[in-house]
């Protein structure tokens, strides 16, 4: 009998039986995250299921991040309902301004090796940077977890991706993710896990892996998983309450496909409107004037991302006239770190519009909405038509460095083409 992939091992652990790719596993959930985008429907499903008390309130985490702050009385009332429910049931709730649920789950040390996490939002895949199993579910699933503590999961097949070497200067995890999206296509990894291996991983820290894990869903993947190593341990140490013990895939595990990526050959990329896999090399994009540059979100909203952008502003100057610079830190912790380090003051001085930590500016539910025909360059994860709240806008996705350089140039640009201030 052949060995197991990391996903097969993790789901065997969570379901209490030996499972292989293709099996349906009924799993015990260690942590389920819901947002104000998904909890209201989950509460309705929960009531319709005939349930009244949640199974394990301490295994749930509610985050009010999609409508932060509430853009309408209706959204405010939905949030009030969520707060009341959380209080009655004893569910930990992170209110408006605390940040994006995914970032909070990671910061709170809930994502840890061997655990099974789900989130009622597609970017719950982000947690798998921590050597756990995690994936996005819907509101009915969340209600099912609230009622039973369990979830059904189809054990995914895996694609083994081995990274070699190191990315050249000016190339970031976002570029690696866009390269993979181009290579695999929006559904190229459908239902499958991307399992990362190789010595190239030593050059990617935990925050870098969060970017890759986060964007794996844009390749249609169920998720992407990373080994438990020194980089993972460095981040989790002090955050996770339980002893850390990583899992790894068996040497004879079966993969649907193996890919070798030479990181030294990568270059900056841009995802063009309106699909994440519509990827071009930055130097092939041509002349695209921009009206808005967005830094932030659960993909590019950590302190490290803003520092990459600020390095460009320090060297090459301010955003061009007519460009709105929109900044959304992923969480209050990230914003606080930027405040303590002085970076937040620098961003304010650059004229940035500082949006409440949350999802609003990325998915058009609250925050900065672009004008008709505007071209937006963003560190976010999606560029679908209408994604930021205006179907007439065009969204381009790139690394923090390219977003900053483009803000300065007033058109999509590489820092190499800018002249020093």
């Amino acid at each position, binding site marked *: 009998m052949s060995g197991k992939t990391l996903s097969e091992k993790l789901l065997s652990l969570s379901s209490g039986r030996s499972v292989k790719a293709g099996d*349906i596993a009924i799993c015990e959930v260690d942590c389920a995250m819901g947002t104000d985008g998904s909890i209201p429907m989950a509460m309705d499903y929960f009531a319709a299921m005939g349930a009244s008390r949640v199974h394990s309130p301490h295994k749930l985490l509610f985050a009010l991040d999609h409508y932060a702050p509430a853009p309408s009385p209706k959204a405010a009332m939905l949030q009030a309902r969520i707060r009341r429910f959380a209080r009655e049931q004893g569910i930990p709730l992170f209110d408006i301004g605390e940040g994006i649920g995914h970032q909070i789950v990671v910061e709170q040390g809930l994502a840890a090796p061997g655990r099974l996490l789900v989130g009622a939002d597609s970017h719950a895949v982000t947690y798998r940077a921590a050597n756990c199993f995690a994936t996005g579910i819907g509101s009915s699933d969340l209600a099912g977890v609230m009622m039973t503590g369990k979830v059904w999961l189809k054990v995914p097949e895996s694609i083994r991706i081995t990274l070699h070497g190191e990315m050249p200067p000016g190339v970031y995890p976002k570029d690696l993710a866009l390269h993979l999206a181009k290579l695999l296509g*929006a559904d190229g990894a459908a239902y499958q896990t991307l399992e990362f291996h190789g010595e190239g991983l030593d050059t990617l820290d935990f925050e870098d892996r969060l970017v890759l894990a986060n964007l794996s869903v844009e390749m249609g993947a169920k998720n992407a998983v990373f080994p438990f190593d020194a980089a993972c341990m460095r981040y989790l140490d002090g955050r996770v309450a339980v002893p850390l013990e990583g899992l790894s895939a068996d040497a004879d595990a079966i993969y649907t496909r193996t890919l070798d990526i030479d990181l030294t050959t990568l270059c900056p990329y841009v995802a063009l409107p309106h699909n994440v896999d519509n990827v071009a090399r930055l130097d092939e994009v041509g002349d695209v004037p921009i009206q808005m540059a967005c830094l932030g979100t659960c993909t590019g909203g950590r302190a490290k991302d803003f520092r990459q952008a600020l390095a460009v502003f320090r060297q090459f100057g301010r955003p061009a006239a007519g460009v709105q610079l929109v900044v959304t830190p992923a969480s209050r912790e990230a914003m606080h770190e930027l405040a303590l380090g002085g970076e937040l003051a620098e961003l304010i001085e650059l004229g940035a519009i500082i949006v409440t930590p949350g999802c609003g500016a990325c998915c058009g539910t609250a925050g900065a909405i672009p004008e008709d025909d505007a071209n937006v360059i963003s560190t976010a994860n999606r560029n679908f038509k209408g994604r930021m709240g205006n179907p007439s806008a065009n969204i381009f996705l790139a690394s923090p460095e390219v977003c900053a350089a483009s803000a300065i140039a007033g058109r999509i640009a590489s820092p190499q083409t800018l002249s020093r201030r």
Partner: protein
Amino acid sequence: MTSLSIKATARRFGDDINTDYIISSRRKRESLDPAVLKDYLFETIAPEFAASVRAGDILVAGKNFGCGSAMEVAATAVIGAGIRIVLAQSFARTYFRNAVNNGLYPIECDTSRIAEGCALQIDMGPRILVHSALDGHEVEAAPIPHDILKILDAGGLVPYLRAHSTL
């Protein structure tokens, strides 16, 4: 599954239809009611759809149907319009889950020869067969795993858990 033969009209969409195209996420701010949201189905990419869809129609799509956000209204709004079956070359996994949990049958088969308005007959039994009345072409769909069919046949996760209390 009880054997069932369904006749219906195909409403054709392409590849990579994301959930925001199925129902714009800004509509969720106003209401989560499928009876309301159905009036805005596919408004971004097919503004005439909501007015012309009839209960019992079948959605037919290419690959990766329901990609993007996991929002469940993208399944319930479809059911709100009286649609019970989606045929696609493949589904995004969150859409597949949400469909199953709400009793919307996500059926994977080769849809390349099915055109808009095509009359279809779907035989659902031990095998799932899709016939196109236009040219008599027949394809066999991927089987639905037993554990998933249990939830679908119950009408979704809500009636399933009402009846069984646990998974």
